[in-house]
């Protein structure tokens, strides 16, 4: 179970009214390499992975939900007071027709989230390598969004999120090292 703390992991400030940026940010909300996919992937892998790395998946999976909240806050702030006309100009006309200003788990192109974004192979090495790749892809996505954003305060939060992907990637590579370790070679039948 979880305890909830009613604050963000890192503050989110948005300077400019820029609904177009929300359209790009939604990639990290419901896209293939986004925070929802990350959280669901890690928390699901916890059950069948060797016990030595369960705690790591639990911690990182939980943190991804904290990141999801930050992205949601950004998207919400960028769109909550935009007029339908502004949303149309920002390329969000189709979104408004379907969802009003509600958030939706989709990528920047409007494709809805799907469980096929995440894998659970059961083989611990294969699963951890997928996790490492996912972190690097999320880091890259943050880079491309930062490149398109000229809001210094929003970029400050995005840089924080990008750095967390760097750390998570290292932690997953450490997990592979733990599972490679020869201390577990002896047969304990």
């Amino acid at each position, binding site marked *: 179970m979880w305890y909830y703390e009613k604050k963000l992991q890192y503050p989110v400030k948005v300077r400019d009214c820029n609904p177009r940026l929300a359209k790009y940010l939604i990639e990290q909300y419901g896209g293939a390499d986004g925070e929802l996919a990350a959280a669901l992937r890690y928390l699901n892998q916890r059950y069948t992975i*060797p*016990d*030595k790395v369960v705690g790591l998946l639990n911690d990182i999976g939980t943190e991804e939900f904290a990141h999801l909240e930050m992205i949601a806050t950004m998207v919400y702030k960028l769109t909550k007071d935009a007029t339908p006309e502004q949303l149309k100009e920002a390329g969000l006309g189709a979104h408004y027709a379907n969802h009003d200003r509600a958030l939706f788990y989709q990528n920047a192109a409007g494709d809805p989230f799907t469980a096929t974004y995440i894998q659970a192979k059961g*083989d*611990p*090495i294969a699963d951890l390598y997928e996790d490492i790749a996912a972190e690097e892809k999320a880091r890259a996505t943050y880079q491309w969004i930062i490149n398109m954003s000229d809001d210094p305060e929003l970029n400050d939060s995005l840089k924080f999120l990008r750095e967390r992907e760097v750390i998570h990637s290292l932690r997953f590579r450490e997990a*592979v090292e733990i*599972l*490679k*370790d*020869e201390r*577990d*070679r*002896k*047969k*304990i*039948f």
Partner: protein
Amino acid sequence: MFSQFKYWEPYISPFDPCPPIRVKSYSTPPNLYINFQPPGMPQFKTPKQALLHGTLWPDLYSPYPNPAKRGDQLE
């Protein structure tokens, strides 16, 4: 030399409905331990051996299923 399989003991609850599998294993193939293949690694004696193993180099061969296990055991 590294081992090709690792073993671990999952937590067993007193309330598990099925008889527990006490030891589980996973494959740790050679590619995990070699970052860049060094030159001059020994090769199989015959082309046919290499063909049947899928690689020229015995050190890169990953056996599966686990040869240390009997055929009637779960992998």
